[in-house]
C-alpha cells in the first residue's frame, strides 16, 4: 500500500516527463524548421543551380512536408535511430548517434567530475556556514561564492587560464619587475604552487582515463566556481530556515551540540529545496557548458551543437537539443524522487 503510493507518484512524474519530452520534441522540430537559411543552399554555395539544390534536398528528404518529416523523425527515434547527419554522402553514411556518442561521453564525463567536486563542496560549505552563521567564515564563504557567480563564466575561464600561464611568465613581466623583489618572489612562489593544468583540453577517443581527468581539470574548476555558490547558499538558507523550528529548540534542550543539531535535526528536513537546486545546477553542467567548452576547446556536446547550427546540420542540432531536454527532465525527475524519499509524510503515510 505504502510502496504503491510512492511508486504511483514516481510513475506519474515519469509519465509527465515523457509528455514534456514529446512537447519539447515538437518545439525543437518547429524551431529548427524555422531557422533561416537552408542546408542545401549553405552547402552548395551561392553559385548552385536550383536543380542541384533541389536534387540535394530530395536526397536528404527536405522536400517532404514538415508534418511528415516530424513523424518520420520521431518514429525512427523511438526505434533508436537518430537518423543520418546531413554531412553524409552516398557511400559515406554518418549517423547522428555515432557523431554524438563520443561527445556526449565527454560532456557527461566533465559533468560527473564537476558534480563530484562541487556538490560535496557546496553542501559542506553550506552546512559549516549555517553552523557558524554570521561569523567571519560565513561572510568570507558568502562573499567569495557570490563573487565567482557574479562573473561571466568565460571570464573565470580566461582568468584561470591566465593564472596557469602566469606561472611561467610572471617573473619576466614588466609588472613583476616594478614590484619589490620580495613581493614578486612570493607571488611567483604562490603561482608555482598551482599545478600546471593544461589550458587546452584536447581529448580524443584514445585519451586514458586519468589523463582525461587531468585535461578536464580547468574546465571542471571553472564550472565548480560557477555552480557552487547557488547550491551552497541554498543549503545554508534551507538549514537556517529549519533552525527556527520548535524541534530544533527541542534538540538543544535535549543537550545536543550544534553539529548534531544541524546535521541530524535540521538537514534531514531541508533536503527538498537543496536537492531541487542541485538538480538545476547539474542540468546546467550538461546544458549550459558550451561557453566553457569553447574556451578550453573541450570536445563536448555543446560545441558540437554550435558547429551543427553553423553548418545547418539539422538532424544533429535536433538530437543535441533533445539530449539536453532529456537530461534536464531526468535530473529534475530524480530531484523530485529524492524529495519524496526524504519526506516521511509521503514515504510513510498514516
Amino acid at each position, binding site marked *: 500500500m505504502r510502496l504503491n503510493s510512492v511508486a504511483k507518484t514516481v510513475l506519474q512524474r515519469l509519465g509527465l516527463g515523457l509528455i514534456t519530452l514529446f512537447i519539447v520534441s515538437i518545439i525543437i522540430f518547429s524551431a529548427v524548421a524555422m531557422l533561416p537559411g537552408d542546408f542545401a543552399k549553405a552547402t552548395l554555395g551561392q553559385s548552385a543551380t536550383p536543380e542541384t539544390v533541389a536534387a540535394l534536398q530530395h536526397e536528404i528528404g527536405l522536400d517532404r512536408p514538415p508534418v511528415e518529416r516530424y513523424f518520420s523523425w520521431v518514429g525512427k527515434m523511438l526505434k533508436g535511430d537518430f537518423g543520418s547527419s546531413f554531412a553524409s554522402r552516398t557511400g559515406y553514411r554518418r549517423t547522428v548517434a555515432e557523431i554524438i556518442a563520443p561527445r556526449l561521453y565527454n560532456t557527461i564525463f566533465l559533468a560527473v567530475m564537476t558534480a563530484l567536486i562541487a556538490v560535496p563542496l557546496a553542501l559542506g560549505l553550506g552546512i559549516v556556514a549555517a553552523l557558524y552563521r554570521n561569523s567571519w567564515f560565513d561572510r568570507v564563504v558568502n562573499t567569495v561564492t557570490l563573487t565567482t557567480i557574479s562573473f561571466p563564466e568565460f571570464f573565470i575561464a580566461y582568468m584561470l587560464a591566465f593564472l596557469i600561464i602566469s606561472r611561467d611568465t610572471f617573473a619576466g613581466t614588466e609588472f613583476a619587475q616594478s614590484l619589490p623583489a620580495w613581493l614578486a618572489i612570493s607571488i611567483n612562489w604562490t603561482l608555482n604552487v598551482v599545478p600546471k593544468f593544461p589550458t587546452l583540453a584536447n581529448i580524443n577517443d584514445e585519451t586514458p582515463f586519468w589523463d582525461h581527468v587531468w585535461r578536464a581539470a580547468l574546465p571542471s574548476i571553472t564550472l565548480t566556481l560557477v555552480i557552487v555558490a547557488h547550491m551552497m547558499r541554498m543549503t545554508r538558507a534551507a538549514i537556517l530556515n529549519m533552525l527556527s523550528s520548535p524541534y530544533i*529548540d*527541542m534538540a538543544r*534542550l*535535549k*543537550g*545536543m551540540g550544534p553539529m548534531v543539531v544541524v546535521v541530524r535535526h535540521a538537514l534531514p*528536513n531541508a533536503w527538498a529545496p537543496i536537492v531541487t537546486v542541485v538538480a538545476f545546477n547539474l542540468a546546467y553542467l550538461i546544458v549550459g557548458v558550451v561557453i566553457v567548452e569553447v574556451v578550453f576547446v573541450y570536445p563536448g556536446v555543446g560545441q558540437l551543437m554550435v558547429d551543427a547550427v553553423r553548418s545547418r546540420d539539422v538532424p544533429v542540432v535536433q538530437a543535441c537539443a533533445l539530449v539536453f531536454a532529456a537530461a534536464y527532465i531526468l535530473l529534475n525527475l530524480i530531484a523530485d524522487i529524492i524529495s519524496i524519499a*526524504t519526506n*516521511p509524510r509521503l514515504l510513510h503515510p*498514516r
Partner: protein
Amino acid sequence: MKSSNVIARERGTDLLTVRDLHVEGFSDERWHPIVRGVNVSLKRGEVLGLIGESGAGKSTIGLAAMGYAKPGCRITQGSVVFDGADLLSMSEARRRRLRGSRIAYVAQSAAAWFNPAHRLLDQTVETAVAHGIASRGEANRDAVELYKRLQLPEPETIGFRYPHQVSGGQLQRAMTAMAMVCRPDLIVFDEPTTALDVTTQVEVLASIRRIVEDFNTAAIYVTHDLAVVAQMADRIMVLRHGQTVEEAVTRQMLAAPTQEYTRTLWAVRKLVKPEIEARDHLLTIDNVTAAYAGRVKVLVDVSIKVPRGRTVALVGESGSGKSTLARVVTGLLPAISGSISFDGQPLPLSLKQRPKDLLRRIQMIYQSPDSALNPRQTVEDIIARPLEFYLGLKGEQRDRRIGELMHMIEMDESFLDRLPGELSGGQKQRICIARAVAANPDLIICDEVTSALDQIVQEEILKLLMRLQRELGVSYIFITHDISTVRAIADKVVVMHQGKVVEQGSKTEVLTTPHAAYTELLLSSVPEMDPDWLTQLLARRKNRGILDAAG
C-alpha cells in the same frame, strides 16, 4: 504526586533556586523586558505550577530554569542554581550535559516539537545515548517500558512510527517518555495538554501525574488553565507582566487568593448566560451526510435546527465533524445527501450555486485571527471589503459604516490604518468579528473563536458576541470544545462524536441531565477547580471501567 506524597516532598532538599531572574526579548528593533525579577525555589519531587496570561513570562521562566533562552531572547540578570551549580555562569558544554539528562522539557505542541524526519523511538532514546547514560539497546528497552507506563497503545512498536503517524495525545505522552528516559531530577512541562481535547487531556494528565510521582521527579508545570494546575501542582505561582503576583500552596491559593488580579483570573469561569427557547428556526439541517473526496464519511445523517437570534453550541472533540459541518453550511464542502433550508427557503448545497445575497447572509469567524486576516491589509481595508463587495457602499457611506462597526467592537478609529501584525490577539479577533458583522448577516458561524485567546480576553470576546446578538438579532453556530464557553453563550447544545449527533437539546437539558454515555464522558472530563477532582474522577472511572473505553 499530591495528597499522601506532599509530606514526603516537603522533606526533599532544595533542587532549583532561581534568584532575581531578568529576561529580555528583541522585537521592533529594541529589547523589551519579559521577565522582571522573579524568584523560584523548588525542592526535589515538588511540583510548582506557573500560571498567568500569555505574555506573563511563564514559558520563558520555564526555559530559563534550564539555563536556556529562546533565539531572540537573553537572560540579562539573576542566577539559576540547579543542584548547587549556577546554570547561567557555567560553560555551554557543561550546560549541555545537564540538559536532557538531569533537566528535561515537555513542550505544548508535541506535533511541532518532534522532529518530523525521525522515528519516535530514535528521538526518545537520543538523549540517553548521547549523554552516555545507556547503550542503545538498554535505552530502547527502557523507552518501551516508559511507553507502557504512559499507557501508549502498542508500546512495543509505536516507537517505530513517525510523529505524523500518531495522534496528538499519544505524541504528548511520547514526549513525556522522551523527557523521562534519563530519569531527570526536574522536568519543565510547558502547557503539555493545552492543544488536546478534554477527553484526551484527562488521560495525559493522569499519565504525567503518575509517572512524575513514580520517579519522584520535580516539575515546573506551566499553564494558563487554573483547573489543570489545581490537579497537578503542590504550589502555584501567579505571574503577570513578568512579575510574581502571589505564590502559595495549591489549596490555599484556590480557597483564598490574596491579590485582586488572582481573583479576576478565578472569576472568569463564572460567566453564564440564561437560555431562551425559540420556536422560529433560521436554519434547518436535515439528514446531511458529507465526505471529503474519496474518503470515509465525516458527517452521517446530521440534523440540527438553529433558532433565529439564538446560539447553538456545537460540542465535540477534534475529528468529531464540527468544523466539517461549518464547511457544509457555508457550502465550501457540498453535502452528499440531505438538505438544508435557510429562512424558509432551500439552501443550495454548493457555494457556487448560491447567489451573492445568500453568501452575505451567512458569515464565518475563524479560530486563528492570525491566518484569517491578510497581514498586508490595513484594518480599514479588511472591514471595508464586505461593505463594498456585498452592499456596494462607497465614499462617505462606507466611511460612516466603518466608524459604526469600529464603535460596535469597542475599538478606536485610530486603529483603522494599522496592520493586523500591530494588534493583540483579542483585537485581531474583534476585527474578524467586525468583518463578519459588516455584511449584515443573519447567521454567523464561530469556529473555536476564543480557544487561541487568554481567559480574560476570551470573556471580553464572548461578552461582545452576546451584545451583538442582542442588538442585531444575529444567530450563532458556535463551535467549541470548551464546556465553560458553552455555559457562557449557548441557548441550545449539540454534542457530536465521530460525525454523528450524539445528543441535542436546550443547554440545561444537555448539561444537567446527561443521557448519552459520550456526553457524560465529555462533561466529566472538563477539569474543575477542586484539587481532588482528577483523583476522584479516575477512581470513579476505574470503578466503572470508562477509562479504557475513552482511550
